[in-house]
């Protein structure tokens, strides 16, 4: 199911949780990384060697929970926000969960928040014990919340307000916030792309020609899927019905010197 929903189930969670013996000894990192992708900052962040060096960058992290002291250095380093630190020794009946939290507004220390499970459903109350947002955390604040011990394997997030009718205030852009970058090669943001669509440029090739989208070093690998999504919303058509534009050789940029010195077999049509 995880592959279809993106929501890990109890068996997935238990597979990555430390043993009860280890949990009883104090704070420890729990890494919920279930998909092989080329990513290893957790391993390089750990100063105790508790997250083994990767043979292949696509490997899933292997955590030696005995070496881990729950320092939480790895938590803000994980781009997927897949790591938390669990401390089952925090109090008699409470566990402390140190979570990466990238929503605004940040909660107040001492406030009460709604605890959420991995599907985003409310499962109880939590108390905000600590909020860390130092420059070293690089805009991934860490929020420590205290939850009932029997919810330690269930809670993975929280909501600041109980007002579920509000339009997710945390993730909406404020008026002052910069428009999200779409094409880093040619400095195009979402507002630029939307303006072009409103002017009538409604295919990838047209937007490309008028704005240089996809003409930079990434050759559209990063920006074109994003713009296809925007075009899909704008035109009310599924992405599968949109023309992804023309891809041209070379697959990867290569110096003219290397091409000029090529002495293999003659290339043909």
């Amino acid at each position, binding site marked *: 199911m995880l592959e279809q929903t993106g929501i890990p189930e109890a068996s997935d969670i238990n597979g990555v949780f430390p043993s009860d013996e280890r949990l009883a000894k104090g704070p420890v990192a729990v890494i919920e990384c279930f998909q092989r992708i080329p990513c290893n900052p957790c391993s390089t962040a750990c100063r105790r060697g508790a997250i083994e060096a990767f043979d292949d960058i696509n490997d899933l992290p292997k955590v030696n929970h005995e070496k881990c002291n729950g320092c939480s250095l790895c938590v803000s380093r994980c781009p997927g926000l897949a790591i938390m630190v669990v401390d089952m020794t925090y109090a008699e009946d409470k566990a402390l969960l140190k979570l990466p939290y990238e929503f605004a507004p940040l909660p107040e220390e001492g406030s009460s928040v709604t605890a959420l499970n991995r599907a985003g459903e409310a499962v109880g109350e939590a108390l905000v014990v600590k909020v860390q947002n130092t420059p070293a955390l690089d805009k991934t604040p860490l929020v420590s919340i205290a939850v009932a011990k029997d919810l330690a394997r269930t809670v993975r997030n929280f909501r600041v307000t109980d007002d579920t009718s509000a339009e997710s205030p945390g993730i909406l852009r404020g008026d002052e916030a910069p428009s999200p970058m779409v094409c880093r090669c040619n400095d195009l943001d979402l507002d630029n792309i939307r303006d072009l669509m409103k002017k009538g440029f409604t295919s990838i*090739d047209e937007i490309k*020609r008028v704005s240089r989208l996809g003409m930079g070093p990434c050759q559209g690998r990063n920006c074109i899927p994003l713009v296809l999504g925007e075009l899909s919303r704008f035109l009310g058509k599924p992405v599968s019905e949109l023309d992804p534009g*023309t891809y041209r*050789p070379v697959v990867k940029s*290569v110096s003219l010197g290397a091409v000029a010195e*090529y002495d293999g077999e003659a290339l043909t049509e």
Partner: protein
Amino acid sequence: MNKTADIVIIGGGVSGCSIGYYLLKNGAKNVVILERDYLSAGATGRCGAGIRQQWGLELNCRMSKFSCEFFENAVSELEFDGDVEFHQGGYLLLISAEAELEQMKKNIALQNSLGIASRLITLDEAKEIVPYLNTDNLLAAAFHQKDGHLNPFHTTQAFAEAFKRLGGVIETRTAVTGVTVSNGRITGVETDKGTIQTGTVVNAAGGYAQGIAKMAGVELPLYSERHNILVTEPVEPLLAPMVMSFSLNLYCQQSPHGSFVMGRTDDSQPRDLRVSAYSGFPELMSRSVTGLMPPLKNLRMLRQWAGLYNMSPDKAAIYCEAPNVSGFYTAAGFSGHGFMMAPATGQSMTELILGLTPTLPWPKMGLDRFETGELLLEPSVV
């Protein structure tokens, strides 16, 4: 879509949009441009973007001078709210043989007599313009500061917006499927979105011009030929002029954005409508260009593409009304220079269609030259 039009222009490239703009500016009404894909989707959007006035034929000099002066003022003339990115870093034409030197001297004398301030320069002077130029196999160079390059997409867009502001209609994603003729006169254009009745059709279909003419029963002595270009990653400004060598058959420029754009002529290329990428091209191009400008070895190629040159028998454009079909006009056969000549094309076709007094030498550029043998053989083309 309109059911009738006074004039239907086939082709939404720079030529079609320029013709549309000049027609409306000179009093024509009810003009429609049909484009089977989107504006500048064909040869315009695939061209090397060069603008030059250094030609060997008087009429090419006059047409290009008119065009270049237009481009200098295009943003205000067309009231464009963007930038057409006209970069007048000059054209540096490299000379590597005695015969070429003699021809270039004649060209320069002609150009100077027409008010084009080109000049013959020494290799030392050439190296002042491009310090890393390898002059080993060169004799001299010709240079004209007012030549340069221009953004084809934005220029076409500027013409198109001005055309629409004057009341013109552009139908994109509308493919022409037939041209109807009755008693030797144009009666309409059939498209995949319906039929437009009209007495006047302008064939500005670039690489597809001969096919459009056939629909009207007109034979044009044209064929299309694939030409290839590659583009590198953008870097700091390193190359001011367009560098061109007729003997090496290549050109290379650095766009204002920083990418190097380069192409070369290759006789092995197919003469049909294919614009697929030719895998042998990067090798040949890289060898020639890094031999001429060695530091370019370190530049990374990002992409290659191809477009169609629409070739005429003497490599000069054809501006004509078909002798056998009244009301069927053609502006084609630019042989690789349609983009830079677009303003002259608009002015010329407007004078031809509206019966105005010629201010440009288009009357010599009709089809009859292939009957009389008075060909316009241009000596200086890549």
